[in-house]
């Protein structure tokens, strides 16, 4: 029974994808299937969180082969949270896409590809096996590549080539590293690795392999100096695709880093985690400076993903209960807020005619509702209280100061300030300034039908509301993140759940 339950995050998107594919010519049916599938995935995520609360860590041995011999899917709080948040963004983007993705792209398979991506992502979040994780990375990579080139425009192909080439480097390194891990320990099961890694005689080699994982996952999560693929690609596809990418792709890398560096490679924390801390700081800084150099809505947002990833890795690298809790909280907050900002960029583009800040304006005056929808996630991203991002940053600041990591805290605060600069730049140009061509946003050539307006803004409003809820009613979310961090930092429960209680 549990096996079926933990397989649901993979099954639901795959079944949705197949149904959407089979729906053939009827776009309406495809759409309904897509939205329904995403809603079911969200429900599954929430159900999993509930189940972990009730029964502790859930383990499903696939094919009934006991771990570590077969593949086990393992759902702890972190995994369940990640599935739920995938469901939330999946649902929001699925609705948004109804008014945004063009018909030709829907015809050739946007909806199935979208859900295959979600399936790959959820697989990565739930698997308890290193090689299986690699497989889900491949599923993600190929389906995201397909979504990226779906429009077949020149800039998209250029971005997609860079995206795929650099991610293939990551994949190859990951594969080699998994091979090395197997060679050293004779196992691929994560829980088993936790037990066998300390027994490896050449601990230096373990650390070297750990570094390979930092590089491999570092490329995936867009850490310095491995992030080039992200700003090269994210502004090119349709807004729906940008949004789901921004929410999930790098976060799978972050998830993998959190998982591996709390469960497997904890034997030389002084080296690996300090290195991660340095990388985190530089990542924050280069990302935010990259954004300061941009003048296009989506490019600014893309560079900010890089910068924000730095905060999550900071939490992991501090490696204290508060730090890891902050990392988990930050991931959740960031996924909601960043995806939402990309969605808003699409609305701004539709209402004013461009993503280029110099070419647009006037949204504040004529579209106050859209202005509010931008302000909530933008200020939250910037860490202004009392929105979700404030708490995320506060926890990390507390965690850093608590153990005397002053430099990283100073960096985090400085980057927060520069983030405000970027967000107010967008606000200034797209909203406050009048439109340079004296166009009234949302009228004439840039008019938006009522149906499209509702479909585009409803998901944004929903996620903005969530941002406010996390900000004002923050305690339950902090408790959940704390519970997740406790599980991560006490891997015995995980190991016992997977391999059975050991003496």
């Amino acid at each position: 029974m549990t096996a079926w339950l933990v397989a649901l995050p993979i099954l639901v998107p795959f079944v949705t994808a197949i149904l959407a594919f089979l729906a053939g010519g009827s776009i309406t049916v495809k759409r309904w299937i897509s939205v329904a599938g995403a809603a079911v995935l969200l429900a599954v995520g929430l159900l999993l969180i509930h189940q972990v609360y009730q029964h502790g860590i859930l383990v499903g041995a696939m094919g009934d082969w006991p771990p570590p011999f077969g593949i086990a899917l393992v759902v702890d709080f972190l995994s369940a949270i990640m599935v739920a948040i995938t469901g939330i963004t999946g649902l929001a983007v699925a609705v948004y896409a109804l008014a945004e993705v063009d018909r030709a792209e829907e015809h050739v398979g946007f909806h199935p590809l979208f859900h295959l991506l979600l399936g790959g992502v959820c697989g990565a979040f739930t698997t308890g096996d290193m090689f299986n994780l690699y497989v889900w990375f491949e599923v993600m990579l190929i389906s995201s590549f397909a979504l990226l080139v779906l429009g077949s425009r020149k800039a998209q192909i250029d971005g997609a080539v860079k995206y795929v080439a650099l991610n293939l480097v990551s994949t190859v390194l990951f594969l080699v590293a998994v091979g090395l891990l197997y060679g050293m320990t004779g196992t691929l099961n994560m829980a088993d690795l936790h037990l066998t890694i300390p027994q490896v005689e050449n601990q230096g080699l373990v650390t070297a392999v750990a570094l390979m994982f930092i590089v491999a996952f570092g490329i995936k999560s867009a850490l310095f100096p491995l992030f080039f693929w992200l700003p090269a690609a994210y502004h090119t596809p349709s807004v729906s695709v940008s949004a789901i990418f921004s929410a999930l792709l790098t976060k799978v890398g972050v998830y993998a880093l959190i998982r591996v560096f709390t469960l497997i490679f904890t034997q030389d924390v002084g080296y690996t985690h300090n290195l991660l801390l340095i990388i985190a700081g530089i990542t924050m800084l280069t990302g935010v400076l990259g954004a300061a150099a941009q003048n296009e809505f989506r490019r600014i947002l893309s560079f900010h993903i890089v910068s924000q990833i730095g905060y999550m890795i900071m939490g992991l690298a501090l490696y204290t209960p508060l730090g890891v809790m902050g990392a988990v909280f930050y991931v959740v907050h960031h996924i909601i807020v960043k995806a939402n900002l990309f969605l808003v960029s699409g609305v701004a583009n539709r209402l004013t005619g461009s993503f280029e800040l110099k070419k647009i304006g006037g949204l504040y005056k004529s579209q106050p509702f859209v202005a509010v929808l931008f302000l909530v996630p933008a200020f939250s991203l910037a860490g202004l209280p009392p929105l979700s991002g404030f708490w995320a940053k506060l926890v990390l600041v507390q965690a850093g100061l608590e153990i005397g990591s002053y430099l990283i805290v100073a960096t985090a605060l400085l980057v927060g300030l520069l983030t405000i600069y970027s967000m107010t730049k967008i606000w200034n140009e797209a909203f406050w300034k009048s439109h340079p061509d004296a166009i009234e946003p949302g009228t004439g050539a840039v008019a938006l039908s009522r149906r499209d307006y509702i479909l585009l803004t409803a998901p944004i409003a929903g996620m903005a509301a969530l941002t406010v809820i996390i900000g004002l009613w923050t305690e339950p979310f902090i408790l959940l993140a704390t519970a997740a961090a406790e599980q991560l930092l006490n891997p015995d429960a995980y190991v016992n759940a997977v391999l059975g209680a050991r003496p």
Partner: protein
Amino acid sequence: MAGLDHDARMPLLAWLVTLLPLAFLILFATYIPAVSAGETIRIVYPWAPSIGVSLSFVIDGLSLLFALLISGIGVIIFLYSGSYLAGHPQIGRFYLYLASFMVSMLGLVVADNLITMFVFWELTSITSYFLIGFNNEDQTARRNALQALLVTVAGGLAMLAGLVLWAQAGDSYELSVLLAQGHAIHADPLYGWILALVLIGAFTKSAQFPFHFWLPNAMAAPTPVSAYLHSATMVKGGVYLLARMHPGLGGTEAWMWSLILVGAITAVLSSVIAVRQTDLKLKLAYTTVMALGTLTMFLGADTEVALAAAMTFILVHSLYKATLFLVVGMIDHETGTRQIDAVGGLRRAMPIAAAAALLAAFSMAGFPPFFGFIGKEMMYEGALAIGPAAPIVVVAAVAANALMIGVALAVALRPFFGPLKPTPRKPHEAPWMMWSGPIVLAAGGLLFGLFPGLVDGTLVIRAAEAVSAAPSDLYLSLWHGFNLPLLLSVITTALGLMLYWRYDAAMRTVDGVFTRIPMTGDRGYDATMAGVVHVADIQTEILQSGIMRRYLLTVMAAFAILVGYTLIAKDALALPDTLGTVPTYMWPIVGLIVAATAVTVFTQSRLAAICALGTVGTAIALVFMIFGAPDVAMTQLMVEILVVVIVAIILLRLPGFHGSAHAGRIGRIRDAVVAIATGAVVTAIMLAMVSMPLDRRLTDYFEAHSVPEAHGRNIVNVILVDFRALDTFGEIAVVGIAGFACYALIRLRRRQTWDAEAGRRVADGKP
């Protein structure tokens, strides 16, 4: 002033929202009896208890004084704005921001939890941003709004770090708990940092030198906003913070000298600049900075009288400054200008405004029997009691106050007296909603001067007790007898009157000096912003160049350096024992791999390169064969053949290949170094790994269970379809999606649009 319709009726909205500050005023007034009896009221709700955050509020003399000022002046500002902005299309948004500001400000002054206080602190900065930028289509307003936001938020972030450090040192986020620990924090090794960080927050918010520049720029806001936020309330947030933290962080040399020096410089510098301004509103803005400097200076002290003087002056200043701002707003509203040279003789057209201005200016100048006189006497008495820093404080206070008298008289007398000057609009009295507030406030300045007993025991002294954390039996009175403070008052008045007598000459002199100063805070801000963007541009040009070769090179180099360094530093290098015994038949295969790799690297032909790569793969298939894995070898061979064939077909359709020619000689060497290093690292790590014994648990299990449980004799097949079927499922999905993607690409080719940038490199880092 676009959008202002003079005849428009005061909207119903304005009446309704004015009830909000009124309700708060009444609410807080009900606490007066308890507080004047010396009580402290605490109210606590949980918020995020697991990280130490609660919605806890405290009402004592200090918070009550501020809360009454905020809500009381709020009533006047809300009413005034309804008339001032009548007919403005965005008046609804204006009130939304104003009301949000007021609530935030009230939250700030009653909050007892450090984080909750910080939340409100930041909210006042944010609401201020929207109010300064209210005329959002004006570029200056936008720029100045951002400046105010960035300066105050930067200080706020520094302060947050200081607050968290303090809370961690004192093991509580509750201010009342921390302050009850008294001076214990002084002994903490981090005290210096905590103090510095908190002070940065307070100084940026309260526009202390060298962060003072944002406040005059904030005058881009509509005048009621300037009167409310940037004079009477928000900018006093920093002062409030200093007062509130005084019992804990205060009382050290570091505290005293930081506050006294910064405050003194700010007070004197800004009152000199105030003389120079011709815009009435800007003049007032600089006098606000002066007042804030004075308050900071006095909060540096640790003596009862000095702290009481600061609290008195807060009330004095709020009353006269809000009045003057609102009067300038009326002048601006009714005449269309607020340049000091452009208006004159308005006393007949606007008698009530003139009366309010005069009353306020006399209080500002510190003439008896106004409340300002009491404030000034207290100041001098406090200054003399300060101790070692007394000379600085006395000189700074006398200088600043003398300049204030000159400015006060200039602001209040010049527009109303002398001959009537022609103005853009024909002047007449503003509606009563506008003049009633100022006249009430100005009258308050006289009333409290005549009857200081109305406020001393109930508010001001109770506030001073909260600051000094000690009971006080001080009281306020107009007449203290002939003493040194009175003498200083006389000197101040004489200097001030002299200044007013030669005001135009003074203006010219100050102006002459200041135009020659090369660096101001404002220009420093611009230079910083430009510097950040410049650094950002350069960094992005280098990192995100759009050149794929560079990206790959960086990633590979990062890998080689990080993993290579770790291998050496962690002493992980090892060679397997069997290395010396390579069977002879392996050498030709190794030779083939090496040769084919060399061809791949050095050939100028794409076709040759892909074929040579295919040869490498085939040789590897041979290795698999030799080690007894024919099925893997078959797969490998088929993949290699297919890749070569497919890529060769694609290559036929591509333009010529330039090889690595365009990398240049140094570039090629660099590429070679990185490539060889990467290869070497992978080889080294492989060798180290194979020198360990292989754990065969999994293989043994698969061998044992393949036939009896999975019913298959080919173990590789059983692994693929049973033991690890989920992997296979994923890989099948990958192949399927790839096919799907190709289908989509081909279907969509028809609508392929080539961008204008076709043929050029798409620089993904730069727009």
